């Protein structure tokens, strides 16, 4: 119950699809999705594996709550060793694909090996089959998904890679339902390296829970809390994650111009309110409506439609549709980080990310790094092939984003990510990365806890591993001072463990703006066999976190990698409330290690591992 207790193992080298029972001991220890898939992954792969070799595995996973009536039950996860980072990668996505896969009767799909030629997988309940994808290779996410729905049934759901995943862009995404994405760390690159183009899924089996009455009561109570909460009941449906743009800018924590600045003059033009405003050009708003992922009462998705006469899309009808609009992270990375304040250009670049299958955070931040390299003369028109890369230029941004998606010209170099790009041109300090992954839209000089979050994130810099912004900015569950380091080590640890558990459940981390573990544990308890107390849930979260850490250490990472770009540690914020501050990571990291039960150089002690059963 909760779990389907079935795994599909697809060997791409041999071309076989086999069903096997779920290891229930592991399910009890790691719950599902992020936790359970990572357990399978670390048990089955060598930590030193080259991410792009056939020996790297890739797992599509659902959680026990995926596909149920739990609020936000549409989440699913891709786990592998990240192409961008070489660290454990775990990217999750919403939309409808995950619930469809679960409803077909599968907790997980483990992909191993590499197909000799491009293939795609179809799943229709217990029937799984590999098909030749020769005619789909080279097609975009949008083209591939449309074709597979036509071929195998409009009621099904598709997850696929675009040209970026095929051509080896190191931050390619796996995109499902046209514009929902497992975006970070290059999980789509790994999928492409296996010559796997897409997965089509259709399920009519049904998902059951242990205690239906108790489950409807627990999920009903959670829905009521979500509806009555100001963030999940009002802010997110109205403005999406873009509700944050002006808030974070005013706080002086919106990195701009490759994090040279902490505030952006154009913030108001690219945020949630701007998406609602009528355009001067055609009198219509960028935002058409919000929409929901499977099972989600919050409905934070943005549906946007561009001005058809905008220079990026004039006479290009495929971009005149209503499609996935800007989320805060994408608007920041493509906009504030590059200095571009034209909402329509950013919407176009976001469409490009969905169409070609790329992570907009790493793309935007890498373009920003390239713009700084160009500004300081480390690269010139000679290296870029004549492509101008000027900060604040919508034209330059649109051109290079499209070239990157297509893998053309200097776009091929942008496709490496900023770490490799900046190293290649002799300015490694201009890459805003941790463990090879670009940090997102919160400046750790203005929000101290986010520095520790980025530095210790197991998948490279990321906000979705411990979103201390909730506490430091929004006051959830309680307000802490964003400029103070005291107490942040404990805050980060608590957020990391809770987030790991929520990810493992198959629900969305956005619920935690309103729900506490006391609201989530009863849902798991009513769905799954066994006794799922709040304490057990937190312990599972801590176990998942340590498992990921142990894997990364075995892969070659050390405490020395738990750091931040020098700019954040040395160059003080120039404006705003955080003016004069740098991130004081050294005040937080030793305490964090100590609270985690790790050695002074970041290795979990044998006592800690024993306590967690690792």
């Amino acid at each position, binding site marked *: 119950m909760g779990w389907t207790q079935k795994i599909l193992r697809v060997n791409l080298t041999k071309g076989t699809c086999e069903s096997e029972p779920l290891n229930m001991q592991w399910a009890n220890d790691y719950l599902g999705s992020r936790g359970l898939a990572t357990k399978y992954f670390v048990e089955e792969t060598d930590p030193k594996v080259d991410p792009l070799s056939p020996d790297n595995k890739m797992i599509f996973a659902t959680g026990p709550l995926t*596909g*149920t*009536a739990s609020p936000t039950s549409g989440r699913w996860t891709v786990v592998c060793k990240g192409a961008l980072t070489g660290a454990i990668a775990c990217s999750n996505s919403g939309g*409808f694909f995950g*619930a469809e896969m679960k*409803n077909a009767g599968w907790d997980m799909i483990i992909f191993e090996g590499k197909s000799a030629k491009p293939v795609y997988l179809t799943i229709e309940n217990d029937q799984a089959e590999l098909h030749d994808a020769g005619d789909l290779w080279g097609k975009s996410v949008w083209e591939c998904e449309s074709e597979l729905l036509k071929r195998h049934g409009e*009621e099904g759901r598709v997850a696929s890679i675009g040209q970026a995943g095929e051509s080896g862009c190191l931050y390619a995404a796996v995109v499902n339902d*046209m514009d929902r994405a497992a975006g970070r760390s290059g999980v789509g690159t790994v999928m492409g390296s296996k010559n796997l183009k897409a997965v089509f899924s259709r*399920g*009519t*089996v*049904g*998902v*059951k*829970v242990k205690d*239906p009455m108790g489950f*409807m009561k627990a999920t009903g109570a959670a*829905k009521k809390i979500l*509806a009555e909460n100001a963030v999940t009941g009002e802010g997110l449906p109205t403005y999406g994650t873009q509700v944050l743009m002006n808030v974070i800018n005013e706080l002086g924590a919106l990195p701009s111009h490759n994090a040279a600045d902490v505030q952006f003059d154009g913030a108001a033009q690219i945020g949630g309110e701007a998406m609602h405003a009528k355009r001067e050009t055609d009198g219509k708003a960028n935002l*058409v*409506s*919000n*929409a*929901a*992922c*499977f*099972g*989600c*009462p919050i*409905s934070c998705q943005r*549906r946007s439609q561009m001005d058809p006469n905008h220079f990026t899309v004039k006479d290009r009808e495929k971009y005149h*549709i*209503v*499609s996935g609009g800007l989320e805060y992270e994408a608007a920041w990375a493509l906009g504030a980080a590059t200095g571009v304040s034209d909402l329509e250009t950013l919407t176009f670049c976001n469409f490009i990310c969905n169409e070609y299958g790329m992570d907009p955070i790493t793309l935007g931040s890498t373009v920003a790094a390239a713009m700084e390299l160009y500004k300081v003369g480390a690269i010139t028109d000679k290296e870029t092939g004549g492509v101008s890369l000027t900060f604040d230029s919508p034209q330059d941004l649109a051109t290079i984003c499209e070239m990157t998606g297509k893998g053309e010209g200097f776009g091929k170099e942008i496709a490496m990510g900023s770490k490799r790009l900046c190293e290649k041109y002799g300015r490694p300090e201009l890459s805003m990365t941790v463990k090879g992954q670009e940090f997102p839209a919160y400046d750790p000089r203005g929000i101290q806890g986010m520095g520790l979050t980025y530095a210790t994130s197991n998948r490279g810099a990321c906000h979705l591993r411990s979103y201390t912004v909730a506490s430091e900015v929004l006051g959830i569950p309680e307000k802490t001072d964003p400029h103070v380091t005291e107490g942040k080590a404990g805050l980060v640890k608590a957020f990391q463990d809770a987030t790991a558990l929520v990810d493992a459940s198959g629900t969305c981390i956005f619920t935690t703006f309103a729900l506490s573990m006391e609201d989530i544990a009863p849902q798991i308890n009513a769905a799954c066999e066994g006794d799922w107390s709040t304490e057990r849930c937190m312990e599972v979260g801590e176990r998942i976190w340590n498992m990921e850490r142990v894997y990364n250490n075995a892969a070659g990472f050390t405490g020395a990698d738990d750091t931040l770009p020098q700019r954040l540690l040395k160059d003080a914020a120039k404006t705003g409330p955080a003016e004069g501050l740098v991130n004081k990571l050294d005040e937080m990291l030793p305490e964090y290690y100590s609270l985690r039960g790790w050695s002074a150089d970041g290795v979990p002690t044998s006592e800690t591992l024993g306590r967690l059963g690792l």
Partner: protein
Amino acid sequence: MQKSLLMIPSKCTGCSQCELACSYAKEEAFNAAKSRIKIFDFPEKSRHVPYTCTQCAEAWCMKACPVDAISEDKKTGAKIVSAELCVGCKVCTIACPFGTINYQQDTGKVVKCDLCGGDPECVKICPTEAILYVNADATGDARMREWAAKSDEASDVTPN
């Protein structure tokens, strides 16, 4: 008083919670594919439309059934399929102009919305009030009120 389901597509976000509640009530599993109410997505217009049986007063499915397996619940007005009597001939699925009565291969029977005995699960679970259960004589009231509210003094006509 009989009540009717009133669906308001402009309020629907496409979250599928109605399909989940319906399928759990009728199939004892969360299974949108077997829900009696279905959400149809029109992504190019960003529109989501819930759709199910409107319980016709003169129900063509009921008239077409050769074994009288479909009867009316006098309290709610719902047309109810008896799984015991249904022989799976599918004639009702041809008779229904709206496609809201459907055959299920695994049971060999047809299924349709039965208004949950007068307490529809889809209505209770919908997070945006896109599905309402209202007086059957007044399904247009909310829409009339909406239009009425749009009128102003300029639309007043003074008779001569």
